[in-house]
């Protein structure tokens, strides 16, 4: 069947070899976030050698785990052309329900592992359901993700305030003792939250780059029509990205609850924006079609690192944390968008 189409084989081969020579230039688009992270770390060391201390590094990575895990989920949503603003409120809501559930189970099962496992299970289930709702309303209702998740954000935020009756929900002290290692414990010298972060990042990387689901996310985010005409179940894949996001929020909440042992209407405020910022700093495009997990990981670490460095210096007030973060986000994206690449013909 190939005789006619392949009548130009020789010129074709020679021409095709030209392509392989391309791509020698290390482009800032790929390595930009890593370079920025290294620069920031060097700055940290210069300001205060304590920055490189094991305790400090470990503490910083542990803190970045919440936003990092949520941001990995957000990478999928954004790559597929969506957006989830509800993650911070969702985390607070899940934390609230977890605490109420575990407190009430103490009577039945005692303050044991069973109670904690129920809490963890409920968290994952809630995250999955919340993501499913976001996904279904967005795809079946054909409403912009921004509006849907703005709505659910308000709903979850008010629900947790309602559950806490305007105050704070506090985890039973006995349960807290058992649950504590989830945040404070460590394995092989690395804290549990960092292990979870690493695990989620590796799974996310494989999922995004080596599975059909990931490839379909890219296709949908680039052009939904093309995806539809490529026999991809667009609505299903998009809903799955929101469910994945929900699970990531649940995982982050599971390691967050033992840290303070409480939840209130103020829990997780602005997490959604920090997560989106981490994703964008990492080189994922907000309009979809292009996503990078390692970039997101670096972005999340960078955001925490800025606060950390400000803590270690007196030169800039700690209150200016947001200012520095804001500048770094804008500069990072500017560097990625600037025309490093040659213009296409």
């Amino acid at each position, binding site marked *: 069947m*190939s005789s006619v189409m392949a009548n130009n084989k020789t010129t074709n081969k020679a021409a095709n070899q030209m392509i392989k020579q391309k791509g020698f230039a290390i482009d800032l688009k790929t390595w930009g976030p890593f370079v920025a992270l290294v620069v920031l770390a060097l700055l940290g060391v210069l300001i205060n050698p304590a920055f490189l201390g094991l305790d400090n590094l470990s503490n910083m990575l542990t803190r970045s785990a919440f936003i990092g895990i949520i941001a990995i989920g957000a990478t999928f949503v954004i790559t597929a052309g969506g957006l989830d603003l509800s993650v911070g409120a969702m985390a607070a809501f899940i934390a609230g329900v977890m605490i109420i559930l575990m407190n009430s189970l103490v009577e039945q099962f005692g303050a044991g592992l069973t109670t904690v496992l129920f809490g963890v299970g409920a968290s994952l289930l809630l995250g999955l359901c919340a993501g499913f709702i976001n996904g279904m309303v967005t795809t079946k209702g054909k409403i912009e993700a921004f509006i849907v998740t703005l709505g659910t954000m308000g709903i979850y935020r008010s629900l947790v305030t309602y559950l806490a009756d305007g105050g704070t929900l506090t985890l039973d002290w006995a349960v807290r003792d058992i649950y504590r290692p989830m945040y404070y414990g460590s394995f092989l010298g690395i804290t549990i939250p960092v292990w979870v972060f690493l695990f989620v990042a590796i799974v996310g990387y494989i999922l995004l780059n080596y599975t059909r689901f990931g*490839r379909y996310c890219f296709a949908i985010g680039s052009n939904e029509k093309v995806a539809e005409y490529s026999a991809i179940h667009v609505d299903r894949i998009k809903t799955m990205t929101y469910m994945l996001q929900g699970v990531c929020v649940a995982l982050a909440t599971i390691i967050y609850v033992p840290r303070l042992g409480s939840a209130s209407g103020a829990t997780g405020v602005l997490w959604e924006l920090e997560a989106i910022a981490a994703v964008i700093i990492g080189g994922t495009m907000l309009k979809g079609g292009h996503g990078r997990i390692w970039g997101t990981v670096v972005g999340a670490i960078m955001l925490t690192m800025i606060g950390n460095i400000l803590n270690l210096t007196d030169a800039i007030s700690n209150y200016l944390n947001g200012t520095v973060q804001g500048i770094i986000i804008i500069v990072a994206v500017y560097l990625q968008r600037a025309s490093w690449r040659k213009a296409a013909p």
Partner: protein
Amino acid sequence: MLLSARKLCRSFGENQVLFDVDLDLQVGEVHALLGENGAGKSTLVKILAGYLRPTSGEVVVDGSQRHYRSSGEAEADGVVMIHQELALAEQLSVEENIFLGRELRRGVFLDRRAMRERSRTALLELETDVDPRARVKDLSTSDQQMVEIAKAITRDVRVLIMDEPTATLTENEVSVLFALIDRLRQRGVAILYISHKLREIEQIADRVTVLRDGHLVDSGSMTGRSKEELARLMVGREITEMYPPRTHLPSDAPVVLEARGMVVPGAVKQASFTLRQGEVLGFGGIVGAGRTALIEAVLGLRGKSAGQVLRNGQPVVLRHLRDAVHQRIAYLTEDRKGKGLVLNMDLRSNVTLLNLRAHCHPLIDRRREEQAFQQAIQRFDIRLRTAARTAAELSGGNQQKLLLAKVMSIAPEVVIINEPTRGIDVGTKHQIYHFIHELTEAGCSVILISSEMGELIGLSHRVAVMCAGVLTGVLEGEQINEHEIMQYASGIKGAEVDEQRHG
């Protein structure tokens, strides 16, 4: 001499696409620019219109050298280009588009009345009934084209560059366009006209320039040149037999696909057809007759309110294109950029997107993906002269081949091809026609939707014709000729068509 280009060269990176090209445009001439996809035509006209700068060489207008830094500077000189892909703001009205960027004002306010009047005059000159207040989004593609042309003539255009202006126009609109071109020519406007349709060029061009692989092959008067000669110059080899012979169809060839009583709200009122093994079933009719809607409803891409689809005689329910893929039915869309290819994705991922399953176990095996891609390059003769990393960087013909490779990756038994040669050069067309022939020889069946009569007549065993959402008739044998098809396409012959739709 109004405009001349001298020894223009242009490279993208290490890749040179134009080599010392000369071009002269005289006052009041229609100058055809010919060449295969990727020959450098688009690059050349983009340089003339100020969208690109040459690597070396010069552009001379009115005897003095110009270095345009933007298309705006070229337009100030009266050099205007109408793009192949229409560049209109969809949400704005026709008049707002026509004056976009150079609005007429009275003081600080817009002078809407003056803009409307001038838009109306320009549209009247084009003999089109487009309302200046209509929103561009609501117009048909051909009307949008008219708006583009109106936009150009309201500027004091002296050199009008048209890149494939008739690709999306109906026969009628083409003759209106040609009449307009004639009037512009009499006014002294020089028109640089890019088209793959040699018949059109024979009809309107005064002079012709042919490019091949970035080099100037020939330039001179049209008189005494035949279509065949031009085709040979473009391709660099003799094209014999544009259309391959039809595959012999045994009288007992089984029906592989059948649609009964299809109704698609707002598009198709009544249509049934059968497709037999090894057959090419053409679909004719004017743009908007419901051909694409019918086919997409069969495939599950659109909802239908009535109708049944049978595959090999068995009723099947196709709710999603994935179901059609399972039935080994492939669909090549007419909109390769909007629906066919993920333009910012790499080429390999585009080819494997439809059948990614085959490369997963369970993770994607990039090596096998790459192998499949290399095979596709060979089989479909995709020429990667421009070191393209994404589909957007390929020329139209190569994009079409890439799309063909993607669609064929499911090893289909029924291939539905929608407008396969729109905006494509003679050489690639020829390849696609022979590819269709190879498919039917191998036992596949093909549905061919086309607005090009020649294609339908040259390739089809039978031609189904639609008019205003109704399948008015299926022509066979001697009946397949231009006159007959037009009769059915306009509803003069065949099944009843709702009066008011075309009255």
